[in-house]
């Protein structure tokens, strides 16, 4: 007898394989694999003396206290019982193999060199959650609620509102600190839609990231013990959002859908010692908190890609019409973006657009400029014209001429967009009082 080491796979050979096996031999193998596995065995090679009911030489296989058969013979032989490619699978984690050979392997005086067998076994995970797999005597209790198989074992878990007990299988109502962090999900009274247990102190906490608002939608049936006159004296379903009581519910009329406007919601379910109401179920979802629609502060402000709705983490960018600067107080902004914050407010307030001011135009040496419009301010689109102190100087301009406009960039530019101002060059040979001879 040779116990096989607790490997997860291996080979078993008849004595002397692949040489012919000896006469009068009994060999026994006990295969054990770790718990949570079963044994699967197949014969890679099988060549024993055939006989009716495998009376002479045979291999006997047993598992889980059951006989899995007695095998002998050669592939295709009419007598005997060749196992072929059959897979032998235990229910438990062990298997027993026995090999018997009688005193001879003669046939009509000729010795036949039967070579015996080569078997291969491996540990296969046992899916303990599949009821059909459990071995009868498997003493382990079933998972009361949920079973989770994994290679080499399994574990139990409980439905929401229940806690796995120390036996790792049974579940007891435990809903005093249920935490939900997914952006949507379901929660219900224990056993829903069966009547809920008595004496419950359930607290379901939904905690989502800031910027999300939880929406509660009650499903049918909704049934909590109530009293005709007194408001929810027996069992109460209280809903709070960030410490703020949203409502206390009972009875048969569903609260329908509730917008909590909060990323944190607590649902307390308190029951007394009696009652047969079927309880409640909530499908909660969440949506990003909304921010107020951005409104420009003046008609020069342009909100890029205005959206119908702005939600948490959305943003909008603002620019100004040409010739206007984005201003935040006295600060000129290169750009402006506001992001919708978790509390439903914009992270910065709407700027305004102030007309570009080009500042006083560059003075022209030996000349001057004059405003085309009366307002004579230096705002965007103001127009000035340069003149030289004639007749002593004459103006030399670029191709863009002597009229300059305050551009959107805040610079004075001529017709061609050039900033270079004209020059006043001396006029030569033009005395204001030239010599004029009278007498001749």
């Amino acid at each position, binding site marked *: 007898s040779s116990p096989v080491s607790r490997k997860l796979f291996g080979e078993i050979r008849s004595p002397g394989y692949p040489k012919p096996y000896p006469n009068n031999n009994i060999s026994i193998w006990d295969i054990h694999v770790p718990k949570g596995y079963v044994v699967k065995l197949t014969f890679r090679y099988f060549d024993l003396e055939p006989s009716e009911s495998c009376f002479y030489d045979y291999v006997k296989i047993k598992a889980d206290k059951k006989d899995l058969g007695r095998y002998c013979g050669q592939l295709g032989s009419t007598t005997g019982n060749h196992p072929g490619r059959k897979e032998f699978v235990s229910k438990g984690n062990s298997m027993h193999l026995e090999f018997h050979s009688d005193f001879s392997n003669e046939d009509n005086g000729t010795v036949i060199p039967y070579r015996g067998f080569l078997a291969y076994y491996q540990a296969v995970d046992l899916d303990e959650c599949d009821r059909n797999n459990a071995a009868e005597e498997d003493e382990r209790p079933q998972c009361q609620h949920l079973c989770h198989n994994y290679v080499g074992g399994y574990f139990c878990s409980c439905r929401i509102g229940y806690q796995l007990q120390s036996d790792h299988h049974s579940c007891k109502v435990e809903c005093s600190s249920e935490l939900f962090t997914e952006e949507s999900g379901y929660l219900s009274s224990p056993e829903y839609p069966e009547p809920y247990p008595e004496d419950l102190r359930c607290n379901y906490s939904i905690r989502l990231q800031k910027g999300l608002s939880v929406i509660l939608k009650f499903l049918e049936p909704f049934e909590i013990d109530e009293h005709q006159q007194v408001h929810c004296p027996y069992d109460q379903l209280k809903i709070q959002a960030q410490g703020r009581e949203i409502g206390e519910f009972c009875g048969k009329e569903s609260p329908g859908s509730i917008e909590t406007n909060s990323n944190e919601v607590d649902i307390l379910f308190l029951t007394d010692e009696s009652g047969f109401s079927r309880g409640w179920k909530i499908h909660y979802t969440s949506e990003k908190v909304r921010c107020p629609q951005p409104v420009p502060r003046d008609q020069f402000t342009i909100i890029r890609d205005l959206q119908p709705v702005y939600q948490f983490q959305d943003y909008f960018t603002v620019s100004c019409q040409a010739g206007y600067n984005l201003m935040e107080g006295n600060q000129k902004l290169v750009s402006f973006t506001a992001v919708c914050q978790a509390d439903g407010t914009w992270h910065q307030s709407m700027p305004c657009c102030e007309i570009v001011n080009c500042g006083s135009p560059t003075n022209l040496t*030996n000349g001057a400029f004059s405003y085309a419009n009366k307002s004579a301010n230096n705002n965007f689109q103001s127009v000035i014209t340069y003149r030289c102190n004639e007749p002593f100087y004459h103006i030399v301009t670029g191709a863009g001429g002597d009229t300059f406009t305050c551009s959107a960039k805040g610079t004075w530019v001529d017709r061609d967009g050039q900033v270079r101002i004209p020059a006043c060059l*001396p006029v030569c040979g*033009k*005395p204001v009082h030239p010599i004029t001879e009278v007498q001749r």
Partner: protein
Amino acid sequence: ILGGKSARRGNFPWQALTDIHGRGGGALLGDRWILTAAHAILPKEAEDNVNLDKIAEDANIFLGHTNVEELYKMGNHPVRRIFIHPDYNPKDYYNFNGDIALLELKNPVTLGPTVLPICLPDATNTTFYRDGRVGYVSGFGVEKNHVSNDLKYVSLPAVADEKCQNWLDSAKGDDPIVFSENMFCAGFLTVKQDACQGDSGSVFTVLDTQSGHWVATGIVSWGIGCAQGYGFYTKILNYVDWIKGIVGED
């Protein structure tokens, strides 16, 4: 100026009074250049080791009035740099070839009715030097043996080169005086009207009737005595490229 008249303010707004080696004249070009005669800066037979920077530092240039006292009160215009034409040779007493120079003022002047630049001739118009072409020359130089306190001017006709040369040959005696193609002469043989000492550097101007602008055609350069015959002027037309090369395309 001999035989001339007093100029009124604004008649010759380009006229400069220079005080470098004594009194001289000049003419404003653009708003920061003074055109004058090289010998007003480097007189003939001056000492050898001349330092132009030192001369520039000490030079006094006045603009904007016809009265010398008033000019002094208005203050001088400091000189940044001096350019003497390379052909001018202060050692060659009788050769005034290349008698032209430029003074760059440190600060541009603001033009007005009494301060205005004179134009330069352009090569297309050579009638400026034709025999008999009338021009005006102004200056603060000697009049009746005294330097004038007021700007005077006189109208003189340009004279054809061969007349200048003939007269010079008869008047110069043994002096090897040079009359070159870079000069011209103007004035009279008998009438007592002429430029004189102290007018050096002032310009001979003519009215270009085509453009309506006054143009400097000559610079008071030399003569034999004053009003003893023709006066000799540097022919500016031959130096316009030199001037523009220094002044740039102002």
